[in-house]
Structures are given as structure tokens and as C-alpha cells.
């Protein structure tokens, strides 16, 4: 839902500052607040499958950091003896946990960014400065499903050949096969990339135990890839000729998207400027950051209820507010 539209450049600025803050803050109160508010925002925006994929990579890395950091890093005043001579330090454990949390926040911030700004809005920012490059990106995005469907077609022809169907002998076989594959292609073209095709390949690659079979599969894969590449290169030549014939580059290209700075944008920029200003003053005084090495200077009793903490919360709220407001408006 996008009832209040915000200029993509403002989004870019806002999320960039958020990432920097994820790098800077190390006070557990600030980090946990950040994490909670980002989780609220993401749950409002909806959890994507891409986020789940990233989490699969993130979890082993964070566990590795949490284990390795105390083992390798012996600096720190509070020693915990595990057995006679072997100790780990409290500081190293805290550092490992805070570091994984920071990484988690960065990942979540970018996941939220991908939800807020789609690629067309992102390209809109570039297209003013780099028209040809953004043209290339748009064309590449169009070529990708095309190439994928070609690869599927080549793979199907290859399967037919492997199964012993001869293309030269009988007319009927060939037409049947091609009609069949066309029907299926439409389905797979509509469904997105790498669903059926991918799993087939993976299953094949995984089910083969013997090396010879693997080599054979790899050869087939290479063949399919080569044929697809050569086919796409040939076809794109026609695209180029067609573009030239239709007068590409005769005048400057225009964009069908147009964004103007509205009241919401100015309000958001004002809010960002004020809160970031306060937060920076706080950072220079050392609020929001803690010493970890050589001795951790954090206790849960000194609660951070001051203006800097308040500004930090206000800085993180506007998108949550917009999401909730849109939900309420949508219901009514």
C-alpha cells in the first residue's frame, strides 16, 4: 500500500543514515531498541522469501563469530575460567553478541529498503545522471526472463534427444514435441525464474553419485548454456537493428515515472535533519556508545532516558507511522 508517496531520494537518504547508525551504536539499549523497531517495521511491510534466504546465511556466520571471538580474543578484564588454565573473557562474549546484532540490523534495514523502494524508483534516481547505463539495466531486466525461457526450451529439446526421439525421421513427432514445449513454456514464463528449471538441475546434480554421471551432466549443462548464449547473442542483434530503425537516440528519452517533492517529503527531511542533529551531538558526548575493551563500562541500571535516546526513537518511527496510518485509512 502506498497512499503517501515519498520521493525515492528521501528514502535513499533515510536508509543510508539508518545503516550508518547500525554501524555506530554499541550501547545495548540503543541496539535493542533499533532491532525491535526495525522488526516492527518489517512485520508491517511483510516478510519476503528473500529475507528468509539471507537469514539462512546469516545464522551460521553469527554463531561462528560468537564462538570464535571469545576463543581468539583474550583481551578484557573479567575472566571466566572454564577449566584450570583456559579462560574466556566476558568482554569478548559481549562484543561477539553485539557484533552479530549489528549485522542482523544491517540486513534487516536493507530488507526493509527493498520493500519500500522498488527497482523502477531506484532507476529513476540514476536515469537523470546516467541515461545509457539505466537503459542497459532496464534492457537486461527484460532479457533475463527471455533468456531463461530460451534455456528451458533448449533443455527440453535436449531431453527429447536423450530419450531417443529422432527429429529428422517423422514430422508428427517433431510438431507434437514443439507444441507441447510451447504450452509448457507459457506456464513457466509466467512463473518466475528458477523454479522448475532450477530444481530439476539441482535434483539431477545431487542424485548422481558417480563422477562419470556428474561429468556428463556438467557437459549437458555446458552445452545448454553455450547454445542459449549463442542464441541470445544472435537474437539481440535484431533488437539492436530494430531499435536503430525506430530512431533510438534521436531525442532525449523521457521517463514515465515522475516524482515531485511534496509536503510529506519536506516533513520527513525536516524530521531527519532535526533528530540526526540531536543524535550526533549525543554521539560526540559518548551517548549510545560503550567501551568494551579493555573493560566493559556498561551496567543495566543506568537507563538511557535522555533527549538523545528520545531523538533516536523519533528518528526510527516515521515509516512505522506511515504504515499504520495507511492501514487505518485502508480499513475506513
Amino acid at each position, binding site marked *: 500500500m502506498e497512499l503517501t508517496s515519498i520521493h525515492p531520494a528521501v528514502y535513499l537518504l533515510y536508509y543510508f543514515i539508518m545503516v550508518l547508525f547500525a554501524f555506530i551504536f554499541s550501547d545495548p539499549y540503543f541496539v535493542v531498541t533499533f532491532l525491535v523497531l526495525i522488526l516492527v517495521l518489517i512485520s508491517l511491510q511483510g516478510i519476503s522469501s528473500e529475507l528468509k534466504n539471507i537469514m539462512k546465511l546469516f545464522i551460521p556466520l553469527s554463531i561462528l563469530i560468537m564462538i570464535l571471538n571469545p576463543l581468539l580474543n583474550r583481551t578484557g578484564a573479567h575472566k571466566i575460567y572454564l577449566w584450570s588454565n583456559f579462560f574466556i573473557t566476558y568482554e569478548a562474549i559481549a562484543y561477539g553478541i553485539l557484533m552479530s546484532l549489528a549485522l542482523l540490523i544491517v540486513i534487516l534495514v536493507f530488507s526493509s529498503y527493498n520493500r519500500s523502494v522498488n527497482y523502477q524508483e531506484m532507476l529513476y534516481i540514476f536515469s537523470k545522471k546516467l541515461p545509457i*547505463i539505466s537503459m542497459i539495466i532496464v*534492457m537486461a531486466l527484460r532479457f533475463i526472463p527471455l533468456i531463461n525461457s530460451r534455456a528451458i526450451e533448449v533443455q527440453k529439446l535436449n531431453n527429447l534427444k536423450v530419450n531417443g526421439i529422432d527429429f529428422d525421421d517423422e514430422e508428427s513427432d517433431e510438431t507434437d514435441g514443439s507444441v507441447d514445449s510451447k504450452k509448457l513454456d507459457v506456464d513457466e514464463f509466467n512463473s518466475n525464474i*528458477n523454479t522448475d528449471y532450477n530444481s530439476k538441475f539441482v535434483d539431477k546434480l545431487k542424485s548422481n553419485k558417480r563422477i562419470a554421471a556428474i561429468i556428463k551432466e556438467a557437459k549437458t549443462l555446458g552445452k545448454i548454456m553455450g547454445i542459449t*548464449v549463442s542464441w*541470445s*547473442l544472435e537474437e539481440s542483434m535484431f533488437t*539492436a537493428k530494430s531499435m536503430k*530503425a525506430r530512431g533510438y537516440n534521436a531525442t532525449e528519452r523521457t521517463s514515465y515515472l515522475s516524482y515531485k517533492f511534496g509536503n510529506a517529503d519536506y516533513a520527513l527531511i525536516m524530521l531527519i535533519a532535526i533528530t540526526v542533529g540531536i543524535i550526533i551531538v549525543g554521539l*560526540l558526548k559518548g551517548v549510545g556508545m560503550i567501551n568494551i575493551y579493555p573493560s566493559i563500562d556498561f551496567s543495566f541500571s543506568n537507563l538511557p532516558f535522555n533527549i538523545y535516546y528520545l531523538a533516536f526513537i523519533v528518528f526510527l518511527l516515521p515509516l512505522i507511522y506511515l504504515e499504520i496510518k495507511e492501514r487505518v485509512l485502508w480499513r475506513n
Partner: protein
Amino acid sequence: MSAMDQMLSNMTASGNGIVNSQLFSITMIIFLILFLVGLFYAIFKMYEQKKPPVESIVLIAVLTALATVGRIILMSIPAVNLASFIIIMVGVVFGKEEGFIVGALTAFVSGLFMGMGYWVLFQMLAWGLMGASAGFLASRFDNVGFRIVFGLLWGFLYGWITDISAIFYSGTALEITPIIALYLNGVSYDLTHGVTNAVLLVVLYDWFKKMFTRAKVKYLSGNQSESESISLSD
């Protein structure tokens, strides 16, 4: 001036070494990101300044799309991708500039599919340099041994360059431990990536070189007889 003095005295009075080191690392991050954005902007702008013909634009678009498909198709098998191979071949056949642009844009476009983040900048750098270095060393690629070494080496270099993005995520960036953890985590990945590159460069090099050279001749030699080709097609 007095406010600045006060800030400085605050910083020194609190005696927080960590404040300084965190501000230092944050400055480094901002500097690095701005440097990378500026680098890509300059190289892309250089390409745009040349007023490339339509054929060149479409060629780069289709090569980028091919490399992206090569990455996305095999996404579920970690570290095995065909994108690096295609980018290296583009660098070898079409030259270093095309190699860099195709490499950088492949990272960007697949980032649009797989999730955008600041790490995309480092992937753009790694793949761009991969293509560009292949362009620089194009004359040596007929040697099989060189190809194997090149593919293996870039498997590791790609991992090391992209891992820079993860080094900076916590305040005190100059710790050695997380870096070791990170690179230990990546060794098997990089090795698989490098072996894939090397195998593909041995097996498919000749075929792809032939194909790309043909496309190059067909695409880029047609520029001189531009008006002629249009009149012929009519």
C-alpha cells in the same frame, strides 16, 4: 570556534578511546562508500561520454542478462555460478572496459533480484575488476595453465573483496578476530567458486571465445556502414 573547542575537549576529557576509533571507522566507511560510488560513476560516465552505438548498448545489456541468469539459475547450489566465467570471457574478448561494465552491472542487476544492500557495491567492484583484469591479460589466455591459475585466483579474490563489506559492520572495525572468522567462513566457498571458474575456463574457453568473437565482429564492425545497413533493411 568555541563550540568546536568544547566538543574536542569533551571528547578528550571523557577519555573514550572508543569514541575516536568508532568515529574513525565510520569516517572510513563513508569514505569508502563514496569512493566506490564515485569510481563507478566515473567509469559509467566515461562510457556514456563516448556516445556508444546502439549495438554496443544492446550487447552489454544481453551479456549482463546472461551473466545474471548464470548466477540466479544456480543460486541454490552455493558458490557455483556461471556469472564469473561469462564476465571473464567478456573481458578477454571485448576488452577491459566492457568487462568492467558487464561485471559491475551483473552485480547490480542480480542485486535487484536477490536483495539490494551496500554489499552490492563490493560485488560490483569485485566482478568489475575481474572483467577488467581479464581484459588486461587477454593475450595470455591461450595458455591453459594461466587460465586455471586465473580462475582459481579470482575465486579467492572475489571472496576477499566482497568480505570487506562485512568487516566494517561493527564500531571497532580494526579488530582482527572477526576478520579471521569471516575469512575462515569463506574459504570453502571461495575454493568452490575458484574451481568452478577454472573448470569452465578449461572446458568451455574455446567455444565461448569463438561465439563472442563472432558476436563482436558482427555487432561492432557494422558501425561504419550505418546508413547503408538501414537502407538495406528498408
